Each structure stands twice: as C-alpha cells, then as structure tokens.
C-alpha cells in the first residue's frame, strides 16, 4: 500500500506540471480559439534561460526563476503582437501552421545557442524524502505540487480581483462589447499569451530537474498536457488543473500496475485518452458543450 501512495504522490507532482502547461493552453484557447502547438517549446526555451542564468552567470535559483518568468511573459506578449496578431482573423490552418513554425524556431534556436547536449538543471528543493506513516514522499514532489497550487491560486486571484483580470475575462467572453466599453482587447490577448508563456516556463523549470534539460524535453509533456486539457475540457481552467492531476496520477498508476503498458506505452495511452474524449465527450469532464449555430 505504501508503494501505491508513493505512486499517487509522484503522479500528483507530474500531474501538477501537466496542469500548468494545460492551463497555458486553455488560457490561449479561451481567449482566441487557438491551440498553441509551440507552448511546450516556448517552455523549454525559457527553461534554458533559467539554466544559463544559474549555470553560466552565477545567479542563485530564485532570482533566476523570477527573471525567467519576466522573460517568458515578455516573450509571450511579443509573439502575440508580432506574429499572431496579423493572422488573427485568418483560417485555423494558418494559425496552426504558424505555431508549428514556432516549434521549429524555438527547438532549433535552443540547439543552436546551447547545443543539444543533455544538461542537469538545479532544483530548489533538497533531494530528500519525508517519511509519512511508512510512505516515503520526496520533497521534490511536494515542492512541485506546492508551486503549481500557489501559481493557480495567484492566477485565480488575478482574474477574480483585479481590473486587468476582469478586462481579460471580458475580452475572452465578448471582444466586441469589451472594445465598446474601452477595453483594449488586442493588448488583453497579448497579456493572455504572456501569462500562458509564464505558466509554461514554470512547467519547464519544474520538469527539468527530474528529466534533465534538452531541446526535446517538453514534447512528451506537451502531449500529456493536451490530453489533460482535452480531458478537463479545453475551455475550462479548473478542468485543465483537474485533468492534469487525474492524468498524472492515472498514468503513473497504469505505468506501475499494468504490465503491458509499463513505461514505454504511456504516450500512446495519452493519445488514446485524447481520441476517446474528443469522440465521446468533446467538451471534456468540466467543459460546456458548444452548440453551434449554422
């Protein structure tokens, strides 16, 4: 039984990482109806910024963490303003292809600047375990879960209690009406991209200590986050977090207890989840079904 709880806790930790990235996807999808396929690569790229600050410039962890968040936010805003805005009203295919282009750019840039070598990434938490009633819980896992929960709470408070948060919600809900009452919708969308990039950076920095830093590290995580977002309902922030946690724990338990799946077939299982949810219940567990007027 102890082993079971250990699996659950480490599942919650990886689930937290999926949740952060899934939340980033949901944020952009809610505001603009676009899925940012480059979300994972942007997260990877910003994680490299944190790495280079700590490893090459001698920063300590938390200042580098904070600086990376600022950089990620600016990156997200910049991309929305320069590349996404001109094609906002174009067909979906155009947007998808552009974000695919961004995947290539960031993946290539990371390899170009920092080489494709696999690197160790520092963790802010000690490499210890706590013993809680016979269950060994790693501090790293608890720390990861804590950071994600704090982040989600801050984000919720931002959307709920600040004027900018209100304007962001308004422009996602009804851009035209928001524009009429003086909300600068274009900039709100850019802020949405910035926040998404920031969430991605957190996901990247929390992932890197365990799976090591390399230009392809976020590809599988991105698929898990897609699965989490789809599972929770691609328009529901709460669903993204819940979906991430469910997926993290579920995949961990399946990997540990279903021999056939093991560690190798976790990615196909995530794919299966995406397909089944999209086919059976496209709105996900917590999303609202869309009724389309024709």
């Amino acid at each position, binding site marked *: 039984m102890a082993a079971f709880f250990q699996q659950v806790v480490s599942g919650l930790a990886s689930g937290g990482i999926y949740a952060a990235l899934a939340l980033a996807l949901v944020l952009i999808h809610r505001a603009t109806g676009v*899925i940012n396929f480059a979300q994972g690569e942007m997260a990877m790229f910003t994680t490299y910024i944190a790495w280079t600050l700590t490893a090459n410039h001698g920063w300590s962890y938390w200042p580098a963490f904070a600086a990376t968040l600022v950089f990620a936010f600016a990156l997200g805003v910049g991309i929305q303003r320069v590349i996404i805005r001109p*094609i906002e009203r174009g067909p979906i295919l155009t947007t998808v*292809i552009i974000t*695919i*282009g961004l995947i290539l750019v960031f993946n*290539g840039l990371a390899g170009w600047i920092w080489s494709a070598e696999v690197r160790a990434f520092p963790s802010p938490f000690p490499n210890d375990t706590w013993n809680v009633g016979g269950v060994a819980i790693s501090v790293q896992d608890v720390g990861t879960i804590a950071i994600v929960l704090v982040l989600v709470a801050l984000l919720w408070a931002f959307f709920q209690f600040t004027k900018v948060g209100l304007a962001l919600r308004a422009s996602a809900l009804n851009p035209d009406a928001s524009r009429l009452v003086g909300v600068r919708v274009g900039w709100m969308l850019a802020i949405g991209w910035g926040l998404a990039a920031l969430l991605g950076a957190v996901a990247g920095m929390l992932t890197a200590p365990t799976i090591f830093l390399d230009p392809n590290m976020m*590809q599988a995580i991105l698929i898990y986050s897609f699965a989490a977002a*789809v599972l929770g309902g691609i328009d529901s922030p709460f669903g993204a977090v819940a979906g991430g946690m469910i997926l993290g724990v579920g995949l961990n338990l399946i990997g540990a207890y279903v021999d056939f799946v093991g560690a190798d077939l976790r990615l196909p299982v995530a794919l299966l989840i995406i397909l089944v949810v999209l086919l059976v219940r496209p709105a996900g567990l917590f999303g609202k079904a869309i009724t389309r007027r024709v």
Partner: protein
Amino acid sequence: MRRRELIGVGVFVLAVAAVMLLPRAISDFRAQQLAYVGIYFIALLGLNVLTGFTGQISLGHGAFMLIGGYTTAILISDQGLKIGSHVFSSDMKDIWTIPIAGLVAGIVGFLFGFPALRLTGLYLALATFAVAVAAPAIVKKYELFTGGGGGVNLFGLPGLTGAVEGVEIFGHRLSFNEWLYYLSWTIALVLFAVAWAILRGRIGRSFRAVRDSELAAASSGVNLARYKTLAFGISAFYAGVAGSLLAIATTFVNPDTFPITLSIFLLVGVVVGGLGSLWPLVVGAVFIQFLPLWAQEISKSPGAPAVVYGVVLILVMLALPMGAAGLVRRIVSLTTRGYHRVR
C-alpha cells in the same frame, strides 16, 4: 479535354522526358539527393490531397510513412516471427513491397478517417499531432515485429535491389543511387498523374466542396463521411508509398527514421509548394531535401536548419499564403495583364 489540359499533358510529357534523361548530366551523389526529392514529392502529393484539397489538417503524416516504411522493411527482411507454432518469414523483393506498403498505410488511413470525421479543424490537428508523437513509442514496444529501437537493417539482404553491385536494366548499368532515382521518380510521376486524374473530376470537386464549406457541400448532396475517409485513405496510401521508398533508399528503418519533425517538414513542404496545388509541390520537396544543406552554410550548428525552416514557414504563411503556386499564378497574371494592355 479542354485546351488548357492538353497543354498540361504536353508539359507533363516533356517533364517526364527531362526527368528520365537528367541522371546522364548529374553526379551519382546528386542522383541520390534527387531520389529523395522524388520521395518527398510523393508524400507531399498525398498530404495535399488531404490538407490542401479537402481541408483536413494532418500533423501526423510521418506516422503513415512509418507504417509504409516498416511494412516494406518487415517484408524484405526475414523476421522469422513466431506466432504459436507457425513461423512467418518472408524475403520479398523490394519493389513488390511498395504497393503493399501503400495499401497497408492506406487502409490504416481510411480507418483513421472514421474517428477523424468527428474532429474538425484544431482538434484534428491535435489528434494527428499526438499520433505522430506516439507512433515511434508503439514501434519500440512491439520489438518482436519491428526490431524495437534498433530498427531493421536491409543492406545486403537479397530482397533489396542493387544496393551492393548496382542494377542492370535494358542493357544499361545503373548504380544504386541512379536506380533509386529512377524508381522514386517513375512512381512519383505515375502517382502525380493519378492524383491529377482523381482531382480533376467528380471526386476532386467533392473534396474541394468539403474544404470550402462542409455545410454547403452536405446540402448539395456530397456525402461528407465518404469523401473525408476517402481523402484520408488516398493521402495515407501516398504517404505509405513514400515511406516504403524511404526505407529502401536508406536501406534501414528505425523509429528515428520517422520522427515528429518529419511530419512537420511535410507540412512545411506543402505550404511552401502551395496548399491545393500539385506540380508546385516539387518546389516543396526540393525545399525539404536541400534546405538543411543550405542552412549548414549559415551555421554548422545542428539547430540551424530547424530555425530556417521555422522562419521560412512563418514568413511564407504571413506573406505568401498560397506558396510557390500562388507566386507563379501572381506573376503569370501580372504578365498576361500587361500583354493584354499592349495588344
């Protein structure tokens, strides 16, 4: 046939002649590179049937190529697969595996078309993307069949034509690379003609109707399910043939022969050639094959080609959404307009 189509057929015949004579003028190494261009051309034709003509996004065509490539590899190499007491083994000649590879991939694509019916736009992109990422993991799992991460080596096997001492056809000696060139371009030209014939008639019209408005197409009596699954099937058939040729050309397959980047590069090729075009896809295929080499001139770093691909993809999408085909059309319309004015 209309006059324009007759001209088209004439140009096609000239192109066939040029393609067939070209190896006399180029080096063995160039022949190999151009063989790959032919292979990518086939895959791009298939992808464009689906994405450019029918409007269904696929970010996972590398997975269909993987199916084709592995079908060929498994049929050529003697795997000695044991199921129960029966030992399956095969050492088929490579060229006979190509249509089988196409059919296997085509059937899988056709079947994938059914769940895909319920997915539109973004969600289809997402699902196909996940397929492409997950496919190598599945290949690694079924080691018995696929050789796992190590892959299947074809070099030197009796089923592989001409890899060791070249090929003799009609009294001509061809090196392995020249043989690859002729093989891939013969198939490419045949499949090009087939695609053209399919797309000019009733089926092509239905595809385009589905792309432009599903609602309007359905109300005009186009059976959406039939044509979408058909587009998936045809498209995957082309990808399977291309994957099969890729396996033959590299004389080796492993999961890394068909990474997610392959799927993405195919999309880049289609966009650069022009969505909804056929012959301009050659430009896209040349782009896929030669861009990494050009990018090497800019920087020796392994990341450089991807950056150049990405930047070109974004720039083309922003500035020239119809790709090379659109550029040509624009130039032609500009010059002919000038011509009319002069007259």
